[in-house]
């Protein structure tokens, strides 16, 4: 029984580290249009192949092909393009603002804009989104004013959150955007609860939530899938697989062993694996899951396969843990470029219009930021009144908080 081979501990490591040449050649990217779109009432166990496939609509020429093609008109496509471009312009400006010391922290969604924007367009306005910190594109698509977002980032007197939250932790019930939590993953089962409530009330609104692939390791991921499955909650559970969790590659979250979409199988839920940089594919998958949920057929797990093109946040330096220009080597391209090319291919758009739109949006952002900065940035200008710090802990302020507010003002 001894002289048996000793065991050894396996620790996954990524293919490439700083200094290596970025290389995704092992990553097989199936052709667009090759995956069949099943009816929305398909039984989950009959479509498990979708959890291992990669749903793509835009081919290498950025033409829309295959049964997942949502056949969107140019107006919708242009709305999407505009929202993605505005999101990116906004991110770039706010990132600079943090670098200029105007706030403490910022997080970009660069390269992942389609994940938020296409989903927001495929959902209905009344549907409630439970995002992570990287879905600012939803707010922008739903026309939440970037000025208010900036005031939140600057924690100034116009910050709707009264300076209480870290930058980018937005909240807007009116825009169906749930208060972002600093604790990753907590919103996933909360979205299921909201969806259960909607079903309980005989409402027709559904919920959707987003987490990163790294966050799938939290217990809340399991609770969300389990409760969603048991109570057939009308909810769309999105896993944004952007390959990285701060410095940690997706293999540490289990990506070497199975796809994240396939986590759905054990709960009897459909799992869809989607090209997250393909605006049309994200739209189509979200639409499929939304129809299914509204038909009382329950939840869908969607893995959005993409790449975090920039650092995790302004506190991060990706050059310490991954090849510098890995983003450029990413085989699924850039969602904005791809949708732009698609529109041009349709004859509904031109490089000139693209250029003009870019200028316009950058100018909009500049103007809004000027206005926001004039009100105040973190530590300068007008902050929210300090006494408000004691409000909203409870609906009514109890004696001990009133007393503490008194102490502060003393």
């Amino acid at each position, binding site marked *: 029984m001894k002289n048996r081979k000793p065991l050894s501990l396996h620790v996954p490591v990524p293919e490439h580290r700083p200094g290596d040449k970025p290389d995704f050649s092992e990553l097989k990217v199936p052709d667009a249009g090759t995956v069949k779109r099943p009816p929305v009432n398909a039984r989950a166990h009959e479509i498990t192949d979708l959890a291992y496939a990669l749903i793509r609509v835009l081919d290498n020429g950025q033409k829309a092909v295959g049964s997942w093609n949502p056949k969107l008109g140019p107006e919708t496509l242009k709305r999407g393009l505009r929202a993605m471009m505005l999101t990116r312009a906004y991110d770039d400006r706010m990132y600079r603002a943090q670098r200029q010391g105007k706030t403490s922290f910022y997080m970009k969604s660069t390269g992942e804009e389609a994940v938020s924007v296409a989903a927001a367009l495929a959902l209905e306005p009344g549907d409630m989104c439970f995002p992570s910190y990287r879905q600012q594109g939803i707010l922008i698509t739903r026309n939440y004013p970037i000025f208010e977002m900036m005031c939140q980032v600057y924690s100034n007197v116009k910050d709707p959150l*009264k300076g209480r*939250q870290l930058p980018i932790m937005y909240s807007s019930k009116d825009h169906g955007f749930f208060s972002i939590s600093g*604790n990753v993953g907590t919103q996933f089962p909360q979205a299921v609860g909201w969806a259960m*409530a909607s079903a309980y009330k005989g409402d027709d609104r559904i919920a959707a939530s987003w987490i990163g692939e790294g966050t799938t390791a939290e217990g809340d991921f399991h609770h969300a899938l389990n409760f969603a499955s048991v109570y057939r909650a009308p909810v769309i559970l999105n896993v944004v697989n952007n390959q990285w969790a701060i410095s940690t590659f997706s293999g540490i979250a289990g990506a070497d062993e199975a796809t994240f979409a396939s986590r759905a199988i054990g709960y009897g839920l459909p799992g869809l694996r989607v090209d997250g940089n393909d605006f049309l594919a994200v739209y189509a998958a979200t639409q499929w899951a939304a129809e299914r949920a509204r038909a009382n057929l329950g939840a869908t797990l969607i893995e959005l396969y993409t790449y975090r093109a920039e650092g995790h946040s302004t506190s991060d330096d990706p050059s310490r843990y991954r090849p510098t220009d890995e983003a450029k080597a990413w085989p699924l391209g850039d969602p904005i470029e791809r949708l732009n090319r698609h529109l041009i291919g349709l004859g509904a758009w031109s490089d000139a219009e693209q250029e003009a739109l870019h200028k316009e949006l950058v100018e909009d952002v500049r103007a809004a930021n000027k206005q926001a900065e004039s009100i105040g940035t973190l530590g300068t200008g007008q902050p929210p009144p300090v006494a408000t710090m004691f409000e909203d802990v409870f609906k009514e302020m109890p*004696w001990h908080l009133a007393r503490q507010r008194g102490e502060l003002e003393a």
Partner: protein
Amino acid sequence: MAMNMIQALNSAMDVMLAKDPNVLIFGEDVGYFGGVFRATEGLQKKHGLTRCFDTPIGEGGIVATAIGMGAYGLRPVVEIQFADYIYPAFDQLVSEAARLRYRSAGDFHAPMTVRTPYGGGIFGGQTHSQSPEALFTHVSGLKTVVPSNPYDAKGLLISAIEDDDPVIFLEPKRIYNGPFDGHHERAVQPWSKHPLSDVPEGYFNVPLGKAATLREGNDLTVLAYGTMVHVALASAAEAGVDAEIIDLRTLVPVDIETIVKSVEKTGRCVIVHEATRTSGYGAELSALVQENCFWHLEAPIERVAGWDTPYPHAFEWDYFPGPKRVAAAMRRAMEG
């Protein structure tokens, strides 16, 4: 109508299910079966499958879905089968339920009542006897409530369900079926003989944040809640001290006026709880009394609490802070 605590809690939920269609109840074994302590018995049958139902054994998921439902506009009432099993839900309670209103500046809030049986005296061993209330009192944004009799159980639970903030509602399981003064060697008493078992059948409430002075006295002040209220009453009689016995009922926000008025009168204070002593809620009470009544204190504030060990099965009555220990503390407080 005479009710024990289980019946009173059941009645509170029955009344609220009938009154408000946004109230729903869920938790482990609470549906068809009616809960391991029978607190939800008959509610599913009477109000329907979706108003009172069973859940998977995932406390984190139970509280998380309740938060989502609260954000939608419902008033979920969830049961955690034993307070000892609330820890898997700790992140959702502390980081989410407690913070939602504040972090969203009132944009969202999640009304929710978390009912859970707590405390010892039933030979439940380490994981059916814990008193974790202090943990929740440290979390800004949570209210913590502990009833000590059927009347308050119903009235406080109705207030908790109607409250727009998350409420941790801790039920002293030892006195579900009868008051208990700590004399385990004596015959069990039914609630029916106790005045506070006379509970209105319909809607009424007992406000959160208000203590009840169960006995007026001049010698010393006792601060207690849950089962220990009954132990304190018996102990005072046995120690022969004219104690003023205050049932806090709500731990956060605590009724500071009632506490201060009493200690300023008596100049002496004994705090009793089942929870482990170190960093128990008695520490906060002791600090509050000493800060607010320092110049009136004639003796050190006494804490009588559970020992700083897990709750050991075989030593139920050596662990439980019974009349002997409480009476001794009262005597010390009088001498001091």
